[in-house]
């Protein structure tokens, strides 16, 4: 009967495993979303995720490709393949399947989704989980700003877009496109909510530098109303920024774009980048990929893309504006001087020694150094995104220079433009315009009427050159027709084909792109 015992033992052994727990497994290494929002720390992490898409290289790429390269300020350049690849967009004949077109849409909505998750997740948290209710409100307001910011970026590039104002959880949900004015109405209402709860820049702890501030929300409100041509509101919000005394113009224009100038007195919203040893993939780094795009080709590891045009150079020259020109445009000779400094030193050493062979060699070396610079289509590079060799990251995608998205100078110019548009505001307009001009040692503008407005428009071009605002300005001012091959029908980018394909009628193609191929 010993046998029976063994058999029973075997028969009963499964009871050990039959408890429900044995089959209840979870994905390891990741927390499930239903238990996530349970501390202030994790609320902060959730908001960081919402910020993270702003620095995504695909988002930033589209930011300048649309804002700067489409305009008369820049050509795409890079290799023949790079240049040819962008050509359809440059000639306003882009197709809905283009990577840039798809990526700007895709990444912006990812940022919106993350922001909505943060807003809803944090809102549902008990106040007691936070050090203070104001922190909870602030975090929600930060996420709300980010959600508005991505809508703002989308509406500027695509026109009619779907408004996503909540965390979408079921695959059957559908949202159609809204009119541009409705999108801006959503953006401004969100920003108004956000600015109420956001701290001033000075109210943040130092460790929070880089988070969105009340000033940032107000500045984007002003700019949004500028696009909507609601001048009173634009002026009022710009005035709130000015009156806050949180910002001032940096006395040195060039200093704004230096490493020392990061998050400086003039900075209202800025993307921070650093050089990380561990984050090297294009999709997971916090380095500035855009610098890689724009560094001169082959003489550095850069691609030589987004080269400023001679047209922009001429504009600086015509305005007699050397300060901003020198800070914005890096000339070919400057590239040689910086990148080939060793070879120049060698040449002067050889010349001092008087050794003819050494001089010849140094000259040959210098020439072959210069020959390395390729596909230099305009003779200029974007100096605001340029990083000197000694500061340059050895990891090509990891340059540490920040990108400035909103500066106090622009708020002044918005204020100036809005004032000039309302009756009796010209004196105020000139005052603010001339603050910006004084900083770069340019004489005051005394014009009025349309001449004053034109002066403000030109000031915007020169002040914001290389900062991806030019095409947006040309569009809103009705001046985009100066661009070759521009057409009203294709002034915005098409809706990505992938979006048209996957949706079931709620998303339609922008009218200029319907039909044909």
């Amino acid at each position, binding site marked *: 009967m010993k*046998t029976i015992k063994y*058999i029973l033992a075997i*028969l009963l052994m*499964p*009871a050990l*495993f*039959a408890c*429900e727990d*044995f*089959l*209840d*497994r979870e*994905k*390891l*290494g*990741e*927390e499930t*979303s*239903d238990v996530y929002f349970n501390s202030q720390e*994790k609320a902060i*992490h*959730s908001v*960081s*995720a919402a910020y*993270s898409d702003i620095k995504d290289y695909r988002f930033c790429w589209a930011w300048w490709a649309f804002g700067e390269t489409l305009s008369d300020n820049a050509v795409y350049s890079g*290799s023949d*393949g790079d240049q040819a690849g962008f050509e359809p967009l440059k000639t306003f004949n882009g197709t809905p*399947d283009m990577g840039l077109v*798809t990526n700007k*849409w895709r990444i912006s*909505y*990812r*940022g919106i989704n*993350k922001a909505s*998750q943060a807003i809803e997740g944090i809102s549902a948290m008990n106040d007691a989980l936070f050090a203070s209710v104001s922190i909870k409100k602030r975090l929600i307001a930060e996420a709300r700003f980010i959600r508005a910011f991505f809508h703002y970026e989308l509406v500027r590039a695509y026109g009619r*877009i779907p408004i*996503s104002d909540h965390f979408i959880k079921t*695959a059957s949900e559908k949202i159609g496109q809204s009119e541009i004015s409705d999108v801006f109405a959503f953006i401004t209402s969100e920003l108004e909510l956000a600015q109420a709860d956001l701290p001033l820049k000075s109210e943040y702890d130092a*460790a*929070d*530098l*880089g988070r969105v501030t009340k000033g940032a929300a107000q500045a984007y409100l002003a700019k949004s109303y500028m696009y909507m041509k609601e001048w009173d509101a634009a002026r009022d919000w710009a005035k709130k920024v000015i009156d806050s005394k949180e910002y001032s113009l940096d006395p040195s224009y060039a200093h704004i774009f230096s490493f020392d100038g990061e*998050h400086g007195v003039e900075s209202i919203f800025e993307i*921070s980048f*650093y050089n*990380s*040893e561990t*984050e090297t*993939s294009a999709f*997971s780094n*916090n380095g500035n990929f855009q610098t890689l795009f724009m560094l001169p080709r082959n003489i550095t*590891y850069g691609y030589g893309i987004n080269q400023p045009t001679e047209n922009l150079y001429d504009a600086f020259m015509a305005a007699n504006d050397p300060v901003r020109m020198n800070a914005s445009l890096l000339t070919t000779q400057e590239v040689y001087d910086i990148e080939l400094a060793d070879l120049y030193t060698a040449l002067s050493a050889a010349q001092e020694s008087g050794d003819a062979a050494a001089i010849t060699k140094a000259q040959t070396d210098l020439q072959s150094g210069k020959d390395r610079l390729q596909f230099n289509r305009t003779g200029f590079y974007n100096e605001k995104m340029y990083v000197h060799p000694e500061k340059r990251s050895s*990891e*090509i995608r990891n340059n*540490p220079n920040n990108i400035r998205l909103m500066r106090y100078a622009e708020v002044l110019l918005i204020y100036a433009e809005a004032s000039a548009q309302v009756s009796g505001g010209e004196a105020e307009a000139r005052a603010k315009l001339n603050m910006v001009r004084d900083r770069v040692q340019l004489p005051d503008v005394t014009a009025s009427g349309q001449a004053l407005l034109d002066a403000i428009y030109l000031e915007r071009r020169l002040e914001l050159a290389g900062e991806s605002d030019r095409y947006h300005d040309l569009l809103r001012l009705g001046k985009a027709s100066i661009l070759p091959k521009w057409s009203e029908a294709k002034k915005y980018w098409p809706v*990505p084909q992938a979006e048209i394909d*996957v949706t*079931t009628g709620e998303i339609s193609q922008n009218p200029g792109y319907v039909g*044909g*191929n």
Partner: protein
Amino acid sequence: MKKYLLILFVLCWLPLLSQAQSNTVTGVVTDQDNFPLPGVNVVLKSNPTIGTITDIDGKYSINTSTNDVLVFRLIGMENQETAVDGRNVINIIMQAEFFGLDEVVAVGYGVQRKSDITGSVASVDFTELENQPVATIDQALQGRVAGVQVTANTGAPGGSLSMRIRGIGTINNADPLYVVDGIPVDDINFLNPNDIASIEILKDASASAIYGSRGANGVVLVSSKRGTLNTAAKVSFNAYYATQSVINKWETTTGPEWYGIQETLNQTRTSPLDLSVLDRNQNTDWFDEITRVAPMYDANFNVSGGSEKMTYSMSVGAFGQDGTIKGSDYSRRTLKLNSDYHVSDKFTVGSNINIQTNEQHSILEGSYHTGVINTAIKLEPNVPVWKDKANHVYDYSRFTDYPNPVAQIEYDNSKDLRLNLLGNIYAQYELIPGLTLKTSYSQNSSRNDAYNFVPAYFVNVNQQNVENEVSRDYTKNDYWTWENVLNFNRTFASRHDFGVMIGYTVEEGTYEWVNTSKKNVPNEDEALWYPGAAADGDNVTGSATEVALISGLGRINYSFDNKYLATVNFRMDASSRFPKGNKLGSFPSVALGWKVSEEAFMSDVNWLSSMKLRVGWGQIGNNNIGAYPYQTTMSGNAQYRYLYGPDESFDQGYVVVNMRDQNIKWETVESYNVGLDAVLFDGRLDATLDWYLKDTKDMLIGVPIPLYFGYEGGPISNVGSVRNKGLEVSLNYRERVNKDFNYNVGFNISTYNNEVLSIGSGQPITGGSYYLGSATRTEEGQSIGYFYGYKTDGVFQTQQEINDHAIQMGTDNTGLQPGDLKFVDVSGDGTITDDDRTFLGSPIPDFAYGINAGLNYKGLEFNLFFQGVQGNEIFNGMKTHLYKFDETNKHKDMLNSWTPQNTNTDMPRLNGSDANNTNRTSDRFVEDGSYLRLKNITLGYNLPRTLVSSIGLEAVKVYVSGQNLWTITNYSGADPEIGQVTTTNYLSRGVDIGTYPQAQIYTFGIKVQF
């Protein structure tokens, strides 16, 4: 707990006979030509664990009782039984058994006589395939079994194959379940083919339902070699050496040809290439630069035998293969021990132990941008490999950013070291005669170490690494299975045969990985290629997955009068992989058989030795769904970081990035099978016919969601269904002409028909991505992963043709010229748009077949084996480069481009500013992928027995063989055997983006038995 588990079962082995007086029997076993047969198993019917084996002269001697029955067994011969009946000398003449109907084959948790099987089960005697120099078991199965399609994804040493049983049942993982000596495993690549005795493939649901939620894609049962009781040690040594070369090359232009084409293109380019930077007469054959003639070897040593209580089989093996592409190789060491110990008449314990290690170096494949083979095909021939070889400076493409493939190979130091441990122990006890309880515990563990070191190097701005980097990725996989099975077999009233099996199993697996990398090793000495030596950038990540499964299973076999057969299988699986409420799945099957030839009315039909009709139905599942795809989790990738503060330190963001469906369940396959097995002409011809219909329901598909939802991926939901149907025929004919000469011919063919019935939203799924888009599409009404794009219709010959054609450029075809490619207006709306994209072909063949033939004359053996597929297409992704009006290398076809003087051609005019989008995904790149290949040809010679025994050996065979010597195909690439781009890229089947071609192999081998 209640529901999952159960037990009971009974196994009736042969009836115990009462003991009688002891007696020694001797004798000689010969064949019908009176030739002595060595190696015949002689066992007592009363106790098959007691036995012996005939010696070289066919002689045996065995202790038995006077009233026992002796059973004589030899592979290839019919079993014979003789009552001892008091005799002391029993000489036996064995008859050649043509197709082993009485052979016992594995059917999952038990065995069955082949003649009693009602499902569709293919059985492969692996020892017959052992002359082929194949690295892996699945390679050896290619073309051997109707309905089993084996395709190499790559020709790389140690590379993966995809095995598809009865078509492609799902857009997800359609790999079959592999079961090695009862242990479920994910793949069988690591096993040494020399250790395998036989393979059974359960093709239809009525056979595979016993594996329940894992049976949907078929089940491959692998049985390894075991020893025999009371047998002297049999020692054998097998070895071969082979040389391999690339099967074929791409037809790319020479340097001067390329240069000429570029000069022509320059005439129409808006910014012409500066060709002066290249030498017109430089001619680098990049493909030659990366290929080589490579050796391969295999050596195996095996000892097997048994005492009266114990059997054993042990082997060691070493295999090594260098790839025909430089930088790729694979080597493997295997150790195997199988043993069984008969503690008593009723109680047996035993174990199987496999230990295997391998080392693999790979080249980059599967990348349509920088894959090594891909770049070697498309790089311009006018660039030399070296700029300055003496100083080790590589040259590079002047106009593209594609890397120099020779440099790529040099700077790739990745290697994989893998350890596989597979083993089980079992105990089996006969409770009462016929009722056996077996419990078995198995462990399957693997460890994979991936090493890499990327030195700092500079080829050019596009191919460089500024700081050296060392990385180490470690994965570990542990899976245990505990099975308990009761088996009962009994015959009632001499006409009712019952076999009942009941069991339960518990399984649990854990998988864990850690990836690490660091930078800046102070010097690049190989001794420092470890993370500890590197200075900067600790980068570590890792995670784990657990799965658990509890199952109850059962089978009833019933046979009435040995004429009417019925089999019922049932399995319930409860799996951790599914959400609460959907964890449990039931998988039933029923099959019926009718041995027509046993009927009285058939007794006069002499040409028919046996015939059996089978019908079967079953439902099975597919649980290959990845790790917990229904759980909404917070991701914390480095991508979701953001920087704050004056020091710019990051805060790690956490967020949901994939939408989830919380209600997913099993994919279910429902299949029907009708089959016929027949043996004709005194056993000379063996035929099997099967027709099947297999519907996959609730197929899990990633539901496409709008980009504006803001997720990185959509939910996976049970929304699809797929139908596969086909006909399978296999015929084998053997003729023994005389004592010195026999031959055999075999043929198998299977047809395939695959149709997607539903994919839920109706939104087509794209796949097979290459640099210009997607080559495949999966949608309702078509086969899985068919090729989709524009149709072309040659080139415009005249302006009139352009004017008459549908609008394919601008608003009125202005800009088109004679010589431009003509796209077909499929939709008929007068304009060429996306709507005109259509079906261009399918990677799934209409039919696949294998033909083998062998003959033996005295000591000589000759074997031929052909394998082929017909009616499938290949998307030639490389031609999208080679036909493009760009700087990459060009196809020789481009030399025949249209010109006003050369109009009789389909190749469009060379156009450097192509606004016609000539290279869009079209039928220009879809080619007939059919092929017939002489897979193996072998000539072997068995040294005369007298000679062999004079030097103290039992048998010696030498052979030469050739693999892949001859292929008929219309495909223009290097090799028409195109699997998937990568192992898990299921919708990239048949897409060639520079597939590692198969090798032509010449082998010399020897087999020695001591």
